[in-house]
């Protein structure tokens, strides 16, 4: 979490932003904001906002310590967020959310104004991943809310804790197709863990608290509260209670003891056991338990992509991650194991490849906090529903008796470990760096990894660069790899780096981006510059939406339809235009120095690394294919 001293700095800088910014004379700002979002309906609101804005600085200057009593729904929302322990909020202003923003004016919350609502959702999502508690994003009704949708869907797919607050037209206008009205609750229903239409100023603060608690509890995920303007401005003196879960919601803790014993016996009788560590291990803070269990019994570990960092990648037992672009040795191990202990994974198709050929000899022990994940994609022979850490502790306790019962011991696993080590030697992760070809992206990733401290947070967009970053960076800790896995959202990298840096100002944050991904959300640089966030963006630029190009070459007879981007801007100059540091990288000899210069720059820096446009991501399991049949090059597909 953010140290107290840092917090104070942040608050100060934001107050300075609000009051010291030459353009942010409150009157001008209010007018501009409204003008930008509402046209006809704006007039009345503008006057209202102007009056309030002129009055507020007087009371607000005393600081957040003597916080005013709740007078409106908006005040209740602010108090609910404070009560939930929220420190930062990411958002964009707009007509229907204005009262809620006004409620933040006197609060202790630090608001980070983003350039686009999608960025607000991704930043909050990354903030939630780094801290483990829900990130909060805010947007107005209509386009503000719909711009959040991609980020909410992203959080839903990756079970990231996120609370979205959206403005809505006044209740009496709802259903009339009013200006900037969208059925936000309807639109986000399938992509939220739960969502709410607030209908009462009296209870709105409690609703926000419940949504926050739900986002955090059990299997984490995004929640949303839609806030009609009349509910936000409506009078109430109700001080919200501390966040409470809905009355029917229970989070499973320990798994059924008998099932645990059976699972332990399955492991004890196995000859080729393997642990599959998923994102749920990070979410459940179960990495220590998992490490203990694996090392205690000498069981090799593969991770899923979201599970990267749950087990140190430089550990002898670690086979890195399995799946479409996972290592050859991870895919061999997962294809040959006879007992798979899968923890906190939903067996995504990018991991399993074809269901028929996934771990086909394995008895599956599935540990998950969400009962609905049990046997959804892969049948669980031993379903263990509960908290990852608690269940791993239970299993650890049951292993001794299980070995006795099976008349075996974990020494029997030695031959299997040896086999896994052989696969590591047989299918090494490597790439050629010939002199007559342009810079290889993997080399840039490795060079950056060597230069950075091991608690560095790495974020990414989606595509080839994401795969290279996850393949060639050595991750050692949970919550150091922040990416868009399930949804595969291009443009996730920069806003998530912003969210990560706000969450962890003392840690280094590196964003590997692709040229295509960076182009989608590069407006976020303005935010990074304004907030002076010391992040380093490395654009692995191959002038193409490279993963698509790779697939076209492999599966569409090299018909490169709409995948090549020879029209890109100069990203170094673009960065400079935003007020960030811009650097260009082309040669192997410059890699170390250029990356170092970017890292040392105090503020956001962008390295435009011109990489070999012909480079592809391998190994690769064809979509729906057999993991053991991963291709090492295109001709093997």
């Amino acid at each position, binding site marked *: 979490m953010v140290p107290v001293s840092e917090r104070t700095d942040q608050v100060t800088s934001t107050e300075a932003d609000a009051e010291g910014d030459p353009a942010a004379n409150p009157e001008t700002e209010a007018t501009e904001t409204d003008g930008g979002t509402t046209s006809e309906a704006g007039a009345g609101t503008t006057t209202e906002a102007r009056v309030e804005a002129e009055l507020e600085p007087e009371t607000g200057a005393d600081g957040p310590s003597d916080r005013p009593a709740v007078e409106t729904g908006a005040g209740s929302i602010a108090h609910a967020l404070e009560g939930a322990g929220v420190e930062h909020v990411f958002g964009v202003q707009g007509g229907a959310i204005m009262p809620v923003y006004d409620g933040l004016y006197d609060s202790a919350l630090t608001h980070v104004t983003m350039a686009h609502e999608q960025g607000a959702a991704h930043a909050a999502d990354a903030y939630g991943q780094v801290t483990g508690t829900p990130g909060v994003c805010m947007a107005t009704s209509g386009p503000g809310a719909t711009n959040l949708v991609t980020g909410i869907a992203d959080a839903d797919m990756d079970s990231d804790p996120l609370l979205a607050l959206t403005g809505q037209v006044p209740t009496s206008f709802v259903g009339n197709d009013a200006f900037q009205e969208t059925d936000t609750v309807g639109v986000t229903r399938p992509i939220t863990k739960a969502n709410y239409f607030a209908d009462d100023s009296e209870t709105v603060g409690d609703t926000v608290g419940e949504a926050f608690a*739900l986002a955090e509890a059990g299997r984490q995920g995004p929640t949303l509260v839609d806030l009609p303007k009349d509910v936000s401005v409506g009078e109430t003196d109700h001080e919200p209670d501390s966040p409470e879960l809905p009355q029917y919601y229970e989070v499973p803790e320990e798994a059924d003891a008998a099932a645990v014993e059976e699972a332990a016996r399955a492991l004890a009788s196995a000859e080729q056991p393997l642990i599959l560590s998923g994102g749920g291990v990070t979410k459940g803070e179960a990495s220590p338990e998992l490490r203990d269990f694996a090392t205690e019994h000498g069981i090799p570990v593969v991770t899923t992509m979201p599970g990267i960092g749950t087990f140190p990648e430089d550990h002898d037992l670690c086979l890195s991650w399995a799946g479409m672009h996972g290592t050859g040795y991870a895919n061999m191990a997962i294809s040959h194991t006879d007992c798979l202990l899968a923890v906190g994974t939903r067996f995504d198709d990018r991991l399993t490849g074809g269901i028929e050929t996934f771990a086909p000899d394995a008895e599956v022990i599935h540990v998950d906090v969400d009962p609905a994940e049990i046997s959804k994609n892969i049948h669980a022979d031993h379903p263990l529903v509960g908290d990852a850490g608690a269940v791993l502790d239970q299993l650890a306790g049951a292993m001794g008796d299980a070995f006795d019962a099976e008349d075996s011991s974990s020494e029997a696993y030695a031959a299997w470990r040896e086999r896994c080590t052989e696969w590591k030697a047989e299918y090494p992760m490597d790439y050629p760096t010939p002199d007559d070809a342009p810079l290889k992206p993997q080399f840039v990733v490795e060079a950056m990894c060597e230069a950075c401290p091991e608690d560095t947070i790495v974020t990414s967009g989606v595509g080839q660069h994401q795969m290279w970053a996850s393949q060639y960076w050595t991750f050692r800790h949970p919550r150091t790899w922040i990416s868009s896995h399930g949804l595969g959202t291009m443009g996730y990298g920069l806003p998530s780096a912003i969210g990560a840096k706000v969450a962890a100002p003392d840690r280094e944050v590196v964003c590997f981006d692709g040229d295509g991904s960076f182009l989608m959300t590069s407006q976020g640089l303005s935010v990074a510059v304004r907030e002076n966030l010391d992040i380093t963006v490395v654009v692995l630029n191959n002038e193409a939406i490279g993963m698509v190009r790779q697939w076209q070459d492999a599966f569409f007879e090299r018909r490169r339809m709409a995948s090549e981007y020879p029209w890109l801007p100069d990203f170094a100059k673009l960065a400079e235009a935003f007020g960030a540091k811009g650097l260009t990288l082309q040669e192997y000899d410059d890699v170390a120095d250029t990356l170092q210069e970017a890292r040392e720059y105090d503020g956001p820096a962008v390295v435009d690394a011109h990489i070999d446009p012909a480079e592809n991501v391998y190994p690769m399991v064809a979509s729906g294919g057999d993991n053991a049949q991963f291709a090492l090059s295109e001709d093997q597909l």
Partner: protein
Amino acid sequence: MSSDSNDNDGGDADRGAGSQQEGRHEQGLEGPRPEERERPQGRRSSQGIRIDPQAEASYVPRRTAISALVANDPGVLATVTGLVSRRQFNIESLTVGPTTNPETSRITLVIEEPDPGIRQVEKQLEKLIPVISVRELGSDAIQRELVICKVHGEEPEKVQAITEMYDGRTLDAGPRTITVEIIGDEGKIDDAIDAYRQFGIRELARTGGTALARGEEWTTDAEEERYERLVNGTRTGAGTGTESRTNGAADD
């Protein structure tokens, strides 16, 4: 890493060590080609169940009723139907109506799925926040459905005969149309409609199935808990419907 160093890049390059030039690679990915690799023997079915290659079997779909007790909140029906359509559950009918508790409604779904699919429907429903309690009803559950059928009125005696055969009622009779209602399980309704076809059916409306568990058995756990609480008077405060969610251990 690389053993055969032809270039002047300096052969045994251990990545991570020394200068940039020493960190350069030559080899690239290597290892046996896919067809040269050892392969596992087993297989899974399309439902992800490990199967014996000798004895392939997979679950066949069956028709069943699932009862869900849900909070009486706006949007619950949309949440449930959205789930059903998004996850492509094969649904035959869905009915919804109030219960003895004003804070809850009952949704009855008749679905046709193989067993793993039925378990998924239950668990995915259970996971929805406004859903309080879910259960698959046994084959002995009491299931009823209503149809209103409007047939041509040329042969009123014959229509009446069939209506009596199916324990139905005539709701409206005019010179040109006769409207009847039949109540029963799905099969009975299907049969009755078949029988009316000879007269020519102008229009019909079916409700879809609704159901309760038979005898003393409770339809969902939450209702049992609530009943116990009301009967024993251990209820505190004014709040009804404070049943606890029962999604603890996986049921398979």
